[in-house]
């Protein structure tokens, strides 16, 4: 290997630990030959708050799936929280995912378990002791304002409350990175504002937050870094950017 190339690799390796997300020239094509993402370069430093925006079908969900290692990229380099997702072993994926918090548009709560058990589940998976669970779960439910509803089943809660349970579950293991895929997609304006406020609080406490959305008002109000994806490519990446919806 030539000297300049080796130096570049070493520099990159040193830099990777600075980033919660490090994507270099990442591409993904679906099995039917349709390209989903092309040559994506995205670096998100620890502690950042980033919106990823784009119209439906732009490639936002595919990007989230790559970051969760639900899908594997065809080419490029992906590091998330220091894990190399291009050659991570299947058995190490759970350990990697415990460094993340994930929130989905449809909440994805365990329907048969109450609020407390839904949040505690993330702790059980991480092999926490009952004593830790009894300490951490109520604290997290207080943070999201649901301490009084810990015995409720998901179907007894409103949409905004369900999303707050999902957020509590995502945060209870103190993840370094929170991925939120359209977290306000099913919520009204008031609940949307509450959830976004919670995400800001979490970010202020040091967690990197990446929010995927196509809600232009939300993005424009928050004045955060905005990465825009169009037809599988990053077309803009702006600090305190805006999003001008075009479908």
């Amino acid at each position, binding site marked *: 290997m030539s000297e300049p190339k080796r130096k570049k690799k070493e520099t990159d390796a040193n830099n990777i630990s600075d980033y919660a997300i490090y994507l270099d020239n990442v591409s993904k094509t679906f099995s039917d030959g349709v390209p989903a993402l092309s040559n994506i370069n995205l670096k998100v430093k620890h502690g950042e708050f980033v919106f990823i925006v784009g119209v439906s079908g732009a490639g936002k969900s595919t990007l989230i799936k790559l970051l969760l290692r639900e899908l594997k990229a065809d080419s490029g380099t992906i590091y998330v929280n220091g894990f190399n997702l291009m050659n991570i072993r299947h058995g190490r994926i759970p350990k990697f995912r415990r460094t993340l918090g*994930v929130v989905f548009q449809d909440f994805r709560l365990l329907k*048969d378990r109450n609020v407390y058990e839904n949040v505690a589940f993330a702790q059980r998976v991480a092999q926490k002791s009952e004593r830790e669970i009894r300490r951490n779960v109520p604290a997290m439910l207080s943070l999201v304002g649901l301490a009084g509803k810990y015995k409720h089943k998901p179907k007894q809660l409103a949409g905004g409350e369900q999303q707050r349970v999902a957020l509590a579950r995502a945060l209870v293991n103190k993840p370094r990175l929170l991925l939120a895929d359209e977290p306000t997609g099913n919520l009204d304006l008031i609940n949307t504002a509450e959830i976004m406020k919670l995400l800001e609080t979490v970010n202020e406490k040091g967690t990197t937050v990446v929010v995927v959305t196509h809600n232009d008002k939300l993005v424009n109000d928050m004045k955060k870094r905005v990465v825009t994806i169009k037809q599988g490519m990053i077309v803009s990446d702006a600090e305190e950017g805006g999003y001008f919806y075009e479908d």
Partner: protein
Amino acid sequence: MKIRTFFYTVEQGVVGIFKNKWFTVATVATISACLFVFGIFYAIAFNVANIVQTAEENVSVTVFFDEGTSEEGIEEIGEMIGRRSEVYRYEYISAEQAWEDFSVQLGEYAEGFTENPLANCANYQIYLSDVSKQNQLVNYLKGVEGIRKINKSDFTADTLSGINMVLIYVFAGIILILFAVSVFLISNTVTMGISVRKEEINIMKYVGATDFFVRAPFVFEGMIIGLIGAAIPMGLLYYLYGIATAFVEEKFAFLSFLTFLPAYEIFQYLVPFSLLIGVGIGFLGSFFTVRKHLKV
């Protein structure tokens, strides 16, 4: 496995059984129905095999000795017969014993004889371990010095060994088909039940659960369901076996050959085998079905 993971697995497994009531009932019913039919055929097969075996044990070859053969010579022939693998047991019938037995059949006509008409009829009654080997033994006996005559029953031996072969093939075929149908039905039921819980498995995986952590409660649940599904038909069959055999023996008392094995002889193998099948199918069904959903 950590002790708290073990308790979590057991707790969630038991919770799963009650949580998915209809799935549990459907799976238990499928396993029970399959193993019930399987058990019936097993019991019939063993009893028929027993009847045939009893009949076979009464098939004998009789050998008579050359005139003037000494007692030592007869004993020597007996030892040679006893060493043969085809022989189940053999019995020496002296001329006196032969006449005494025959006199019983003759009744009052026997009194007309002043001398033993069977004086030259001392013999060995040889019972076979396997009737299909009768000819093999007879061929050997033909070459033994001191044997004058050999009586055998080709028809009985051939018929019984024919029945034996047919029974083996028919019952092995039926049991294999039933087993395959059971596995198919049960794994389908398990697959449907677990597919409904695909979302639950996905959520667990997103939160960072290992494959083992996700799978263990399902597998435990599957094994318990398999065990219950196998235990029910075994209990039912044990109860019904006594009633059914007593009924058949009473109604068909004129068929002297119709005897049934005691329940414990049938169930000492059937019960552990069925429980093993139930637990095994529960284990494999849930293990492989959950695996399909773990690739998240």
